[in-house]
């Protein structure tokens, strides 16, 4: 269970303080596929960033299971990002000089898995997300946007996280490919029993989500709805 209470994030700018996330509460059950829907600048990416411990909230708490993420120090944060969370980025964020397979192997390398084992799992994951074998040794520059995003999803699954955070996963894709990616995430949440929170402004995602949180100016504007 993911529980968020009174989460606040502010940014100081020349024109004053911006409340990017303003006193947000939410609860997500394990294995659910949840969407954060809102316009650009509404605060959904900032919220995801705090859920994934990429940035620190100014106030509030985030509990993943029994663990309060906001109280973790450096080593705990590294472990949390490595083992409990998987990130899918809008621009894929693959390491350009590594092959698709090596990109997927990276998180497993950070967790100390043996090379042969991580090679095998990376290949299985790429099969699972639908990247053909002949493309697994290609560098990201030689893959299409949809294929790169599949690699990004496989990388997010590498260490079997309980939570996958996807920030605009279809943002750089055409609508058909975007639909395929959303379907893939949905299927993974079902098959892997992984909680998936996807930030998007694509309303077509609604059909496949268990819950939708609508966000505006850093606050949920309606309660969760299914």
């Amino acid at each position, binding site marked *: 269970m993911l529980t968020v209470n009174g989460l606040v994030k502010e940014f100081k700018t020349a024109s004053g303080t911006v409340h990017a996330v303003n006193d947000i509460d939410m609860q997500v059950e394990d294995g659910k596929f949840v969407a954060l829907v809102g316009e650009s600048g509404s605060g959904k990416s900032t919220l995801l960033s705090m859920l994934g411990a*990429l*940035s620190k909230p100014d106030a509030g708490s985030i509990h993943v299971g029994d663990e309060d993420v906001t109280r973790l120090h*450096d080593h705990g944060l*590294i472990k949390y990002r*490595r083992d409990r969370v998987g*990130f899918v980025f809008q621009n894929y964020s693959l390491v350009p000089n590594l092959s698709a397979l090596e990109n997927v192997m990276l998180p497993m390398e*950070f967790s100390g898995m043996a090379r042969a084992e991580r090679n095998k799992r990376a290949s299985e994951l790429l099969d699972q997300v639908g990247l053909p074998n002949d493309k697994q040794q290609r560098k990201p520059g030689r893959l299409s946007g949809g294929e790169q995003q599949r690699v990004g999803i496989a990388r997010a699954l590498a260490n079997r996280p309980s939570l996958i955070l996807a920030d605009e996963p279809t943002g750089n894709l055409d609508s058909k490919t975007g639909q395929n990616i959303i379907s893939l995430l949905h299927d993974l949440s079902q098959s892997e029993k992984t909680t998936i929170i996807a930030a998007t402004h694509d309303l077509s995602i609604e059909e496949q989500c268990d819950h939708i949180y609508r966000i505006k100016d850093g606050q949920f504007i309606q309660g969760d709805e299914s």
Partner: protein
Amino acid sequence: MIRTGSVVVILAISIGLALIMLISLFAVNDRIDSVRGSVGTTITVSPAGIRGFQGGGELLTQADSDKISSLDHVTAVEQSFQKMLTTDTDTSLKSGIDPGSFGKQNNSSGNGSSGAGNRDVPPAGGMPGGASGGQQMTMPVMATGVAQNASLQSLGVDKLDITSGDGLAAATEDNVALVGSTLASKNNLQPGSTFTLFNTQIKVIGIFDSGNQFSNGSLLMPINSLRKLATSEGQINSLVVTADSSANVQIATDEIKDAMGSKVDVTSQLDSTKQALSSLEGVKSIARYSLAGSLVSASAILFLIMLMIVRERRQEIGVLKAIGASNIKIMKQFITESLTFTLLGALVGVVLGVVFSNPVLNMLVSSSSSQSSQAAQGPFAGGPPPGARGPGGPGSVVSASQSALENLNAVINYQLLLYGLVATILIAVIGSSIPAWSISKIRPAEAMRGE
């Protein structure tokens, strides 16, 4: 790829330059040690202004000798006493040295006031033995009393061969003498012969050849015997001081000057090698500063390149942190990249160092050599031509300097390469760890936002 190549080339030039300077520094240091070693450890102390025996100044005493013996860097002090035998009553020996045209010229211009038939103090401007009214000029005979056989500095010679007979038991008070070959020949002396000195019969125990005409016209006796016969007991013309090492000759010289003040003149072979050492020190100084400069510039170049790379890859670092990379992992990755750059640069740099070390060293040396030659010659330059060796004069100083700078070869050895490798690794680690550390401390979200 082009950028990586450029980085490696820039680093190779810096590392190559550092290696060249390191090699030059080693070569010059070796030569400085060699020049210092050739100086020997002896220092001559004479009464001020008189070079011992031609009048003026006060002779040295046992107290002076003891005072010098007690100095820190002095290991031995040898006394010598010299007596110029100028009259027939001093000795039965005839001088072995021909007065030459210069002496005869002075003789004819003398006023003869010093009396006929003696070899006593010369008239003003003339040599000893000056005579007038057709009197034949004779040169004095120099008798030197020595305390040990080893030192011959007071005779101005480096070595002494006993051509016949035995050596001198210098510590005794026997009335014996070693006679120079020229003096022996002039007086038909052989080992076992006798002559008189201050009305005392002296036995010749050996004939020596010093390779120096002036010395070969003199005789050596035990110092105590000569002083007793000349009724000059306790008097010392010069002291030959031995310093504890050639490196400390200058310090010992300064100590003696401080202890004795203006009462004495202190000389050593170091004086003639000062110019050479000065040239070498000049090259060493250039090499040292250039080495420091090239190391600093290599570090700065690498630091700036790594800073640029780290900033460019800020987003990638953010992603790596987001997927679980630790700060140490990220730092290790950048230090490894930096090490790879630097080692590739070092590889090319070693080749550059090997190829260019001798030409650069020669350039440094020729520049320093021409400067020191000009400084040494000055407005009154003289002496023998380059390459000629001879005592005294600026020419000999220039010659010594040039000799010290000749055939200065840069040699690469394992020790040098080891120093180079350590410096390279230090450059790589220092140049990359600071930028990598600074970026690794940033939160992933901040890094991923980019600039």
